[in-house]
């Protein structure tokens, strides 16, 4: 199983964004470094959700925000290691919609958020046609 290191302050940052954004999906970029089977997240960025018509259950991450995160990552000697988004009132498991757009080689962190709290946080990695779960460590 792959492992992703997501330090508590970054997890807290994501939780705050997720709760503030409820009942709409929020999304963003994970920046850090990869070594062997471990991903280390060092910064998280929030991006705009361009899907305003179905913002409760869909997201399109603003590519301009992704480009900005990529520049910031490179300037810091880091790289984009994955993405995060929320599932309001849904489990922290990837949907078919998530699978269709996913790339091999990135981590996809999903936060299940319900009302005022995050119910669950899990990370996934595409492996061929399906997702496999990653171990999330602090």
């Amino acid at each position, binding site marked *: 199983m792959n492992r992703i290191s997501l330090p508590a302050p970054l997890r807290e940052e994501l939780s705050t964004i997720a709760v503030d954004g409820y009942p709409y999906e929020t999304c963003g970029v994970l920046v850090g470094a990869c070594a062997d089977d471990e991903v280390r997240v060092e910064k998280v960025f929030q991006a705009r959700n361009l899907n305003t018509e179905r913002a409760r259950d869909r*997201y399109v991450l603003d*590519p301009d925000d992704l*480009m900005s995160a990529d520049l910031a990552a490179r300037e810091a000697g880091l790289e984009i290691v994955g993405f995060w988004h929320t599932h309001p009132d849904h489990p922290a498991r990837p949907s078919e*919609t998530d*699978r269709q*757009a996913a790339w091999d080689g990135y981590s996809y962190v999903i936060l299940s958020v319900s009302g005022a709290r995050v119910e669950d946080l899990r990370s996934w990695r595409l492996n061929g046609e399906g997702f496999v779960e990653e171990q999330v460590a602090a």
Partner: protein
Amino acid sequence: MSSVIVRIPTPLRGFAEGQSEIAAEGADVGAVLSAVGAAHPELLARVMKDDGQPREFVNIYLGSDNVRTLDGMDTPVGEGDVLSILPAVAGGAE
């Protein structure tokens, strides 16, 4: 013809001998990417469709501009420009 730097995202570096950047020449975005693809065909196949357009879940940036907002793959490039290949990220609970 201009010499351009093409930035390769981490998941695609395995199709580019591990390189994070590749220098290539061309007059426009499509020509530069095709030049990269001549040496790294598996990389190109993951970025462009057979019709020469970017794949659905791929964005190409020239500097800080998405080429979809310019002239697409026909966008002219200049000496020293930087092209970035990035994923188009989407999904959702349903």
